[in-house]
């Protein structure tokens, strides 16, 4: 359980999230991909904290990243709801134009 191996796991999670975020058409599924990417960042942050500098500063950074994930989810759902109400769709392809 060295730092390099943990970072490889985090890289795998990040790549799975990136694949999902790029290939999915539904807005909420794209959000799930982004969640997986931020998840990987949290894991990598925790690994760096434990293996290189276990001071409280790193934990505060992880708290901020978790707060950022919460903000992303809340605004993402609000936008997805609004998109569904106005255009009756939940696909990102239909939301490609700003004016319609």
């Amino acid at each position, binding site marked *: *359980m060295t730092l*390099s191996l*943990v*970072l*490889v*796991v*985090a*890289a*795998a*999670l990040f790549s*799975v*999230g*990136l*694949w*999902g975020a*790029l*290939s*999915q*058409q*539904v*807005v*909420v*599924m794209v959000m799930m*991909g982004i*969640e*997986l990417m931020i*998840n990987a960042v*949290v*894991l990598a942050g*925790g*690994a760096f*904290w*434990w*293996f*290189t*500098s*276990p*001071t*409280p*500063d790193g*934990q*505060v950074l*992880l*708290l*901020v990243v*978790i*707060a950022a994930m*919460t*903000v992303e*989810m*809340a*605004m993402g*759902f*609000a*936008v*997805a*709801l609004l998109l*569904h*109400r106005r255009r009756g769709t*939940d696909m990102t392809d239909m939301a490609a134009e700003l004016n319609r």
Partner: protein
Amino acid sequence: MLEAIVFWISAVVAVAAGVTVFRTDSMARATYALAASFVAVGLMLLTFALDYLGVIVILMMVMEMAIMALFMIMLMGMNPALMPMSMVHGKRSAAVIAGLVFVGLAAAALLVPWPGAVEAPVADTTRSLGEAVMGSKMLVMLTVSPVLFATIVGALVLGHPRNRYQRYGADLAADHPDDPIDGGVGR
């Protein structure tokens, strides 16, 4: 030793659940596969002696996945019966890009000479985190809190179907808001 076993099992579960999110046939299963991935990452954080953060990740992420499941069902209209669904675009380019990113990041992770530990961790990581948040990092918390408040207000404004003119009348002069379901406080 036990921590290493828990870590590797959680690592396999996290990545497998992450892949399951995009390969499964049911929206609820996709959402809860993501929840399983998050719980596994929380367990991995617990093996790093990040007690408070690991438990917080489990708590918040399960809560968020429960709400996300509601939105999935609402927007995509699935029923519990499993039906094959595949809504993807650009499958090949996405897979290629993700593969290249993984190879690059893993190479960097394995080849870069990372520094060793600067100092030993404090015995009570939760107390040191609390003291940092309330002491030297108070400004960080002061900045995060209006951001979270702005998120609440923004999400409600974007998500609410009726605006304040529909609820209070054209000149905002009504005594009680005109809501279809009245709350329990009697406002």
